[in-house]
């Protein structure tokens, strides 16, 4: 993943490389054009000066010839000779490459030349002037190097500005993102985004605020529904229960009718239990069990085991206890007691006749294992009404509650089946 600004930076860098690269020949042609023009002018002036200078001297023919020979010797850049053919009197301008004078290495130089007919004391002469001009490749290389340096400067500038901009420009975006990351639907706290003067971010914040508010209200109404529905069910359940209590007092009912009432009673107890558990789940999720204290987990575990002893005895289950003394945990007493009772009851209910239960507690974890024959379906284990074991009793919410209590205390719960034993592990 690349950062957004780095993506634009790459494009910008490539574009500027392209522009600067095309500027190299452009610069070269312009520079060379000016350069040659300037030299042509320069050659013209020199030719003019030579013509004037030699004419002003008023030399005799012999002196003139002498001077021209001398001239040609001391001025290697120019050449003066008698015109043989006077028909072509137009000045010629051209560029040649030749060995540079006074250079001992083999070094070709570029020369700008002017070949012009001049008159010295009424005699036609051909004057050739050669002026060294910078070689093409040297100019190109110089321009390219400078362009490249500017390119480096440009990219460095982009990078620097980018960094500065990304801090400043994206600050509102980062704020929004950080707040979104901390948002938890369970927390009930509506987040407010900081005001920004960037139109796009402001629009984003508005959209997010609306989305979050909608989510919170849907979530709340769903939770309220569970809570309200559970509450509303209590009264009719109470009425049915009480009417049944009255009904069995009736002296005319038969044993069969009594059994039916008893069956209704059992089903009713189950509904009541489901209802209570749904309410409990809603309450844990609503963080209504805020109180917490240091709890001697070892004591609590032992007392829960004792409470349920008669039920394990009833099934001839051997209970092995391996509890380290004085394991202290921070948590909600009601919930932790519920967690232990649920785990232990599960271990008793899902046990085989003459089976075993092992409860191990140390400072890091609680392990409850019990004998069993078939592994529970792991994926749906902690879901509500998942019924991972196909059994008829229970509310289908026991493990969901255990899971919620673990989440509430930030403990991790795991399940493992090794062929003959179910094992639940809770890491504190």
């Amino acid at each position, binding site marked *: 993943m690349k950062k957004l600004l780095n993506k634009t930076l790459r494009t910008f860098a490539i574009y500027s490389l392209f522009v600067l690269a095309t500027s190299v020949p452009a610069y070269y042609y312009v520079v060379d054009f000016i350069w040659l023009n300037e030299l042509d002018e320069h050659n013209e002036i020199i030719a003019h000066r030579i013509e004037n200078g030699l004419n002003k001297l008023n030399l005799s023919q012999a002196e003139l010839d002498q001077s021209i020979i001398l001239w040609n010797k001391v001025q290697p850049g120019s050449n003066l000779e008698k015109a043989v053919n006077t028909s072509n009197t137009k000045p010629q301008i051209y560029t040649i490459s030749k060995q540079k004078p006074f250079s001992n290495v083999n070094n070709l130089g570029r020369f700008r030349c002017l070949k012009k007919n001049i008159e010295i004391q009424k005699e036609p002469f051909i004057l050739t002037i050669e002026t060294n001009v910078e070689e093409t490749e040297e100019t190109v290389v110089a321009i390219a190097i400078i362009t490249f340096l500017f390119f480096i400067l440009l990219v460095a500038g982009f990078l620097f500005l980018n960094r500065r901009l990304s801090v400043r420009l994206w600050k509102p975006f980062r704020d929004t993102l950080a707040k979104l990351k901390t948002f938890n639907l369970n927390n009930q706290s509506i987040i407010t985004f900081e005001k920004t003067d960037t139109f796009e971010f402001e629009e984003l914040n508005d959209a997010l605020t609306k989305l979050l508010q909608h989510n919170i209200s849907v979530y709340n109404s769903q939770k309220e529904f569970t809570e309200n529905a559970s509450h509303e069910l209590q009264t009719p359940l*109470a*009425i049915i229960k*009480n009417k049944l*209590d009255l009904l069995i007092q009736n002296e005319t009912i038969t044993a069969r009718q009594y059994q039916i009432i*008893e069956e209704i009673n059992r089903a009713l*107890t189950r509904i009541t239990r489901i209802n209570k558990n749904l309410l409990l789940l809603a309450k844990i999720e609503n963080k209504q069990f805020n109180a917490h204290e240091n709890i001697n987990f070892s004591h609590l575990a032992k007392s829960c085991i004792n409470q349920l002893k*008669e039920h394990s005895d009833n099934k001839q289950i051997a209970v092995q206890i391996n509890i380290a003394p004085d394991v202290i945990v921070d948590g909600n007493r009601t919930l932790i007691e519920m967690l232990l009772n649920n785990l232990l*009851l599960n271990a008793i209910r899902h046990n085989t006749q003459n089976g075993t239960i092992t409860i191990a507690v140390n400072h890091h974890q609680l392990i409850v294992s019990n004998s069993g024959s078939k592994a529970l379906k792991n994926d749906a284990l902690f879901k509500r009404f998942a019924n991972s074991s196909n059994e008829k009793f229970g*509310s289908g919410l026991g493990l969901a509650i255990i899971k919620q209590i673990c989440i509430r205390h930030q403990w991790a719960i795991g399940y493992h089946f090794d062929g003959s034993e179910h094992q639940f592990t809770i890491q504190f």
Partner: protein
Amino acid sequence: MKILIVEDETELAQSIADYLSEENYLCEFAINFKQALTKIETYNYDCILLDIMLPDGNGMAILEELKKQGKQDGVIIISAKDALDDKIKGLQLGADDYLIKPFHLSELAARIYSLIRRKQFGNSNTFFQNELQIDLLAKTVLVNGKIINLTKKEFDLLLYFIGNKNRIISKSTLAEHLSGDFADMLDNHDFIYAHIKNLKKKLKEAGCDTYLKTVYGTGYKWEV
């Protein structure tokens, strides 16, 4: 014995009254906060059953009112709310007990019974029935003057029956009473059978009459 039932659900109030009336309790009703307030100002009750969620007010305020007037009426809160905070607050405000809906009428009757015994007999709270003598404070049971040793649960069951005499109580009701919240999570209620068997045996061995009868196979009745 006069009992005030403060409950806006008339069906529920009527069921409670039906069950209790056979016990020589005289039940009166208040279906809202206002009525309840008028009644407690005017009369004294042995026991008030108080629903704290009333349409026109919170039942807790009635507790405060009773306290202000210095009344000694026993109060059992019956609430649909299973909240520890409410329970603690109610008991602090002077309620004697807290029962969560839905409950069995026998459970309510047992609690009313022990509440009234406590209120009326104070320190010498002893129940007599022919050869049977139960000291409710010391939690001892004597048959023909001889102490018999009952476990906590057996004693608990005995009191439950005494509070519901001549009433049929089903095994599942007793299971709920003894195991509280997780009765429905147990695959069978045979543990009740074991407790009842032991209780019967101990009473019989001490020479107590068989007041505790089994009816319809799985129901029980304390016959006097």
